[in-house]
Every structure is written in C-alpha cells, then in structure tokens.
C-alpha cells in the first residue's frame, strides 16, 4: 500500500493539469477531440478489466455505453437531473447489466460469451429504437443546462472526462495489484484449475463484469450533453466495440497502462484521420491496425518495449 499515496497524488496532478488546460482557451476543437480520446481511455480501461485481466471478450461495449447514455437521456427528460446524478445513475444501470452478463458466464464461455454480448447489443438497440420517450430511431435533441461552473460547456465536459479517466485508471490499477487481479488472471489462464485451487471464480467474474459495466456506463452518461443529439445508431455504434478491443490489444492487456497507451495513440490517430481523410477511412485503419497487432505483436506495445529491454 506504500504506492497508493504517490498514485493518488499523480492522479490529482493529472486532474489539476486538466483543469489548467481547460483555462487556457486554446482552439476549442482540441477540447472536443480531447473529450473523445479521454472517453476512450475510460472505455478501453473498463473493457480491459474483464477482457484483459479475466479473458472474457466482450463485443457488447456499445450496449453498456449506450445504456449509460440513454439512462442520462431519461433522467434529463424526466427531472433535468444534474450531471453528477447522471454519471452515477448511468453507471449503476450499466453495472446491473454487467451483473446480468456475469451470470451468463456460468453457461457461456469463450466464443459463446462473446456472441451473447454482441446479440445483447443488437437486442438492446432494437428496444431503444422502439421506445418513443427517448426519441426512438429518429433520435432526440438534448438541451445543455445553461451556465456551466466554468468555461463553456465543452471545456467543462472535457474536465469531467479527465477526472473520470483518472478514476477509471485508478480502479483498474487497484484491481490489477490486489488479489482480485491475481484471481482474474488465474481464471483467464485456466478456469477449471483456478476453481480447483479455491479461487472464487464466479464472484470474481461477477465483480469484473459489474465494475466493467459501471465504468462503461459512466463513460456514456455525459454523451447526451456532449453531442446534444442522441440517436441509436451513434450511441450503439460498432466503433465502440472495435475500439474497446483494439486499444487494449495495441497497448497491451496485462497492465493498466496498456489501454491508456492504446487509447491515446489510436484515439489521437482517429481524430487526425477524421479531420484529414474521412471517418469511414479511420475505421478501416483501426481494423487493419487491430489485426496487424494481434497477428504480429500479440503482447501489444508493452510487450514490444519489454522485449527491447530484455535484450
């Protein structure tokens, strides 16, 4: 626990840096792009808790993200709830979904679990598309609350996302270094053997799916205020599923820093490509980079660095 205090300090420093950055009033687009990259830091970190540590590949990231976003939409529509309430509620509802998915792992392993999460995403999208209160398939405009605490609203959301990213990474780091992380990697390597050795596999899996779901929901909750127009195709975009997978794979799945590296690199590259080429093209690049890394550098950038150091 000797390293907890420095970590906490570094986390606070990053948040402080984010707030200072928010005061600088550089090109507003940078905040806009920065928000997306930080959002991917949260998403990739959340995915990695289940996928990287536990070895359960979740293709249903869009379902959790969109559930967080739509929970926020409902609360905005209903009582115009403040942002902290949206974050908490979005996280909790997605955590519940995560818990449900966790019970699925009793029966579904490997590819079946992954297909179930993908199907979940499709079924949930169908339900949202038929629900008029949240705009159905046409979508819904969301008014931002007037007068953010500081700066303009995008700058404010950017700062919130900095804090969320730091929070998510801290949670992941804590899990990785505790007995929970060791238990999860034991069940990733061999679930039967772990169970026989007395690792409480079900409890660990439920914990991982719930925490992962919570963080994905939290990442989605500010989304309505960020885009101000929510529609199912953008909230459930398959981009989230691919990026959530690609970023940890590129960075390295065994450590908390891997998803962060992957999210910052791939996220920035995508923002650049969207501006300079086209948004379809940047998805193509993500796909190619993902396959290239999985085939050529299965341990990600962290593995490459480790190999270089080893020599």
């Amino acid at each position, binding site marked *: 626990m000797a390293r907890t205090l420095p970590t906490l300090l570094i986390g606070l420093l990053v948040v402080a840096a984010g707030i200072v950055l928010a005061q600088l009033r550089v090109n507003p687009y940078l905040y806009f792009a920065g928000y997306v990259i930080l959002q991917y830091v949260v998403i990739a970190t959340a995915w990695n808790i289940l996928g990287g540590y536990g070895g359960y590949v979740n293709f249903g990231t869009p379902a959790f993200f969109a559930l967080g976003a739509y929970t926020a939409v409902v609360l905005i529509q209903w009582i115009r709830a403040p942002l902290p309430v949206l974050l908490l509620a979005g996280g909790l509802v997605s955590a519940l979904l995560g818990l449900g998915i966790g019970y699925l792992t009793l029966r579904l392993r490997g590819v079946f679990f992954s297909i179930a999460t993908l199907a979940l995403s499709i*079924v949930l999208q169908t339900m949202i598309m038929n629900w008029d209160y949240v705009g159905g398939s046409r979508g819904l405009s969301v008014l931002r609350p007037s007068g953010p605490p500081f700066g303009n609203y995008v700058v404010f959301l950017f700062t919130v996302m900095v804090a969320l990213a730091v929070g998510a990474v801290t949670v992941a780091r804590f899990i990785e270094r505790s007995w929970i992380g060791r238990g999860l990697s034991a069940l990733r390597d061999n679930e039967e053997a772990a169970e026989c050795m007395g690792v409480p596999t079900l409890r660990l899996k439920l914990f991982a799916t719930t925490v992962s779901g919570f963080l994905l929901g939290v990442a989605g909750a500010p989304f309505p205020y960020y885009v101000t127009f929510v529609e199912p195709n953008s909230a459930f975009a*398959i981009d989230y599923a691919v990026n959530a997978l690609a970023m940890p794979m590129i960075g390295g799945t065994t450590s908390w820093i891997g998803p962060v590296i992957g999210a910052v690199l791939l996220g920035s590259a995508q923002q650049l490509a969207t501006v300079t080429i086209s948004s379809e093209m940047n998805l193509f690049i993500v796909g190619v980079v993902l396959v290239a890394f999985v085939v050529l550098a*299965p341990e990600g950038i962290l593995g490459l660095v480790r190999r270089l150091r080893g020599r």
Partner: protein
Amino acid sequence: MFSWDLLANAVVAGLLLGGFYAAVSLGISLIFGLLDIANIAQPAFVILGAYGAYVMNSAYGLDPILTGVLFTPLFYLVGAAVYRIYYAAFERRGDEALRGLVFFFGVLFIIEVSLSLKFGVDYRLVQAGYIGKSIDLGGGVGVAFRYLVPCVVGVMMTTALYLFLGRTFYGRAIMAVSQDQGALRLMGADPVQIKTIAFGIGIAAASVAGALLISIAPVIPSTDRDYIGRMFAITVLGGMGSIGGTLVAAVILGVVESLMSTFFGPSWSLAVSFGILLAALAVRPAGLFGR
C-alpha cells in the same frame, strides 16, 4: 379470431427460410463445428458474396446464384489464406482462444468497413427472372420464388457437403481431423493441410450463401451482424458439426422466426436466435444431433 391462413403461410415461409439458413450456416458448421475455429467473420464473408453477386448482376446482368457459384474458387483461396495466417499466428502458438477471436472480429470489421467505403450504406439488390414470381398452393398459401430457389439450393448444398464428408477421401480426412489430430498425423496426413482445405470450403460456401441472401432481400454492409447469432445458434442446436443436424436446426429456427415475426412483429425475430442459443447451451449443449 385466429387466422389459419396466416399460420399456414408463416409455417411454409419458415420452412423455406430454414433451407436458406442451412446454406448460410454450412460454412460455420464446418469451420466452427468440425474444426473448432471460432470464425465470427463468417457472416462478413457471406455479405462479401452478396456484394459479389450484386456487382456481377448490375454490371453484366449475370444471375446472382450463378455468380455465387463462379466465385467459389476465389473465396476458397481467400479462406485458405485466412486459415494459414490464423494457424501461423495463433493455433501454432496455442493462443487461439482470446486473440483468435479478436483476430476474426477484426477481419469482420475490415470487410464491413471496406464494403461501406466502396458501396456506401444504401440497400443493394439484384434482378433475376424468378424474383417477384410466386406459385399458389391453394387454400390461401403462396410460395414466393425468391424464397423457394434459395431453399432448394440450400438443401442441395447441404446434401453435397454431407456426401463429400462421408464419401470422399478429403471429406473423411476432415472428419478425422475434428476427432483426433494426432492420430491423423500418425496415418501420414497433414492436419494443417486438411484444415486449410476445410476452411477454404467453408468460406467458398459463403459465396453461394451470400448470393442466396441478396436474392431474398436487399443487403447493406452491416447485415452481417444479424446473422452471427443465427449461424452460431443453428450450429449449436444442430450439434456442432453435424451436417444433417444443421439443416434440421436451420428449419426449426426458420419456422420459429417466421411465426414470431408474423404474430409478434419482425423486430423480435433477432431475439429468437439468441433465445435458442441460450436455451440450447443451457439444456442440451451437445445439440440435437451431437455425438
């Protein structure tokens, strides 16, 4: 009042749909059921086959199903190449579970995005003499040719694969590789070569299946996602690699989906395959015809 016409029509449509679903699922039955390779990119190859049929049909007026058959050698080669990469990168290292799955998801995504880069996200369809015609079976029950033809082709494909696996040398070798690789190696056959052939055939089947798909309904690049659940549900329900079981399971799924969409609305038909997959895994993981 309950409408018997509606029920009869739904059952007939479901039976026909089942034959088509069998065609779509044969490839995954071979690749996942027999070789145990979790190729979730299979539906993307089916959509690729559909676009192949679309291009040849709109440019040269070629019959879609004929195009699908003509493209099979090309798809076979692509499939063989994909398997070689998969083998070298994952199977040989014994690292196929997590990263192999991610690899195939990446392939699925690349195919989907490439198609939307090339063709956009508009619905594409094909023209052929039989599309739009139907015959009346009497009693208010009709059969549309655009369902009948894919069903017949699907049943033919199933029969052909069944005979190939049971009667030919390479077919038997594929069955053998799914049972005991080590024993096959001792008999002097190379499991990797046999698996390459099987994987190639599975992808080649996707070419024809795609042509059938676009004959039935218009296609967009993201149609593949609707078929992932169906394919795996059929393979599991049919009993992992049982070709006859695949046909039976496909017909069951077709009829249940058709009944659901007739009586509860089409948006529920996607939930059916998911439900069947869960139920099959919970009650009888070996499937209906499992060994």
